């Protein structure tokens, strides 16, 4: 994909010589996606849909986009599947090494900065939008957003991916500081359900996780159990 971006005016589709092989076999695998992360007092709640697409074909309808980076730190991946998997593997290694050197659980801010370092240095070659979320002893629950381009910013609530455009309004009007863990889970599930309804590249099941000092709790909401709204 990087090569074609550098040559916008080729015109001819030079790659598809064989008519027997359909378009979507050449397309890069993208996570399409809607991802979301919310801070609450004592931890974070993260959520994602489960659809991975190659062009118009759904390559994996039960993807897990919530990737553990360390015991209490997760990342939500959006953009190119290959790029985000590779970056997450690199950061997992770097953070694990750093944590052993420190002999202490790593900070969420450290993990976020490691993501930023990779995403910014190779910004021309990568397509990765990542939310880093977790709990540490110093600042409690934190959410950091590392969008395409390699910016790093901490936010109390953040959404990402192609489906996020449809839920900014919902998020702005329904989030308030001081929500409980259960309320955050409900908010995330509702927002993801709305985005999956409207965005073609998002769908499947909702994967939720909540991270706090006590530990990690993962949940899956299947298609028929998704929160329902007026239009469904």
């Amino acid at each position, binding site marked *: 994909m990087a090569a074609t971006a550098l040559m916008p005016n080729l015109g001819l589709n030079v790659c598809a010589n064989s008519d027997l092989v359909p378009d979507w076999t050449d397309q890069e695998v993208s996570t399409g996606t809607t991802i979301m992360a919310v801070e609450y007092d004592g931890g974070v709640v993260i959520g994602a849909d489960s659809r991975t697409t190659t062009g118009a074909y759904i390559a994996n309808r039960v993807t897990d986009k919530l990737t553990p980076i360390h015991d209490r730190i997760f990342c939500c991946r959006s953009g190119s599947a*290959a790029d985000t998997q590779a970056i997450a593997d690199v950061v997992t290694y770097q953070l694990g090494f750093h944590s052993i050197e420190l002999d202490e659980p790593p900070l969420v801010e450290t993990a976020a900065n490691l993501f930023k370092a990779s995403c910014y240095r190779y910004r021309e070659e990568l397509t990765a939008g990542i939310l880093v979320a977790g709990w540490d002893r110093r600042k409690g629950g934190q959410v950091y957003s590392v969008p395409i381009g390699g910016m790093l910013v901490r936010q109390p609530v953040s959404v990402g991916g192609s489906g996020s455009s449809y839920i900014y309004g919902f998020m702005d009007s329904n989030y308030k500081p001081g929500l409980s863990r259960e309320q955050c889970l409900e908010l995330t599930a509702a927002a993801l359900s709305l985005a999956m309804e409207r965005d073609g590249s998002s769908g499947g099941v909702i994967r939720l996780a909540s991270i706090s000092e006590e530990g990690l709790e993962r949940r899956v909401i299947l298609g028929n159990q998704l929160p329902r709204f007026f239009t469904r």
Partner: protein
Amino acid sequence: MKRNATSRKYGLVLSKMATVTVCRTNPGGFNFENCKRNLLLEAEANRVGYSLPTATKTGTTICGLVYRDGVILGADTRATEGMVVADKNCSKIHYISPNIYCCGAGTAADTEMTTRIISSNLELHSLSTGRLPRVATANRMLKQMLFRYQGYIGAALVLGGVDCNGPHLYSIYPHGSTDKLPYVTMGSGSLAAMAVFEDRYRPDMEEAEAKQLVRDAIAAGIFNDLGSGSNIDLCVITKGKVDYIRPHDEANKKGVRTGDYKYKRGTTGVLTKMVTPLALDVVEETVTTMDTS
């Protein structure tokens, strides 16, 4: 490539602005300049009406599923070069290690060499650790290599095997992303095969039923996709045993011709026969040796 549509447009504008001013001498890592050159050459050739020779692709239907005792991999056996069948009975299930096999779709050379390289490295790794290799290790090695080549190695793989942690199945895409699933299909016939899997797959199937399901999935690809054809190969991997069944099903046996265009002697009646011998002498004889080494 599906992305956030609005940010893609802004992103492209911003990155153009950013790259104009930045001049990187040699950032290290791979240099894909020749790939750009190749694409331009191909465009030039197409413009004047020529087409460069295409690499043999495997068109292909490959699939795998996890059943009660292990993993079953299936593949068709047709290799295509453009619109022509290059090989009617090629082997698409490659050996990685005694307990791990890999089906390959995409460019035939790429799948063959990639699996050979990783098989070799995995054997060395296995001798180093003193243990039977794990499927997750093979997956890591394959995905890191394919990501390094940024999708230019056109190998889409279905990796399956049984190790100390049980049966595992991965699908690996040319750009280096992988998915760990109970059933996967790849190649041009993957949609046909996936339709069969989605209809009839259940967790913990028995071997006979699982083999039949894989056979039917590949058959769906063979008969409904032009890029796939010929026979069905199967590979059943269980703890301690591998059954490489080639072919499992000769779905497209070459038939016997019922008629012949050759005419029998005597079909055309002979009216007259005149024989004129030509007396020829050998004038000159030269011998040129061929270098057949």
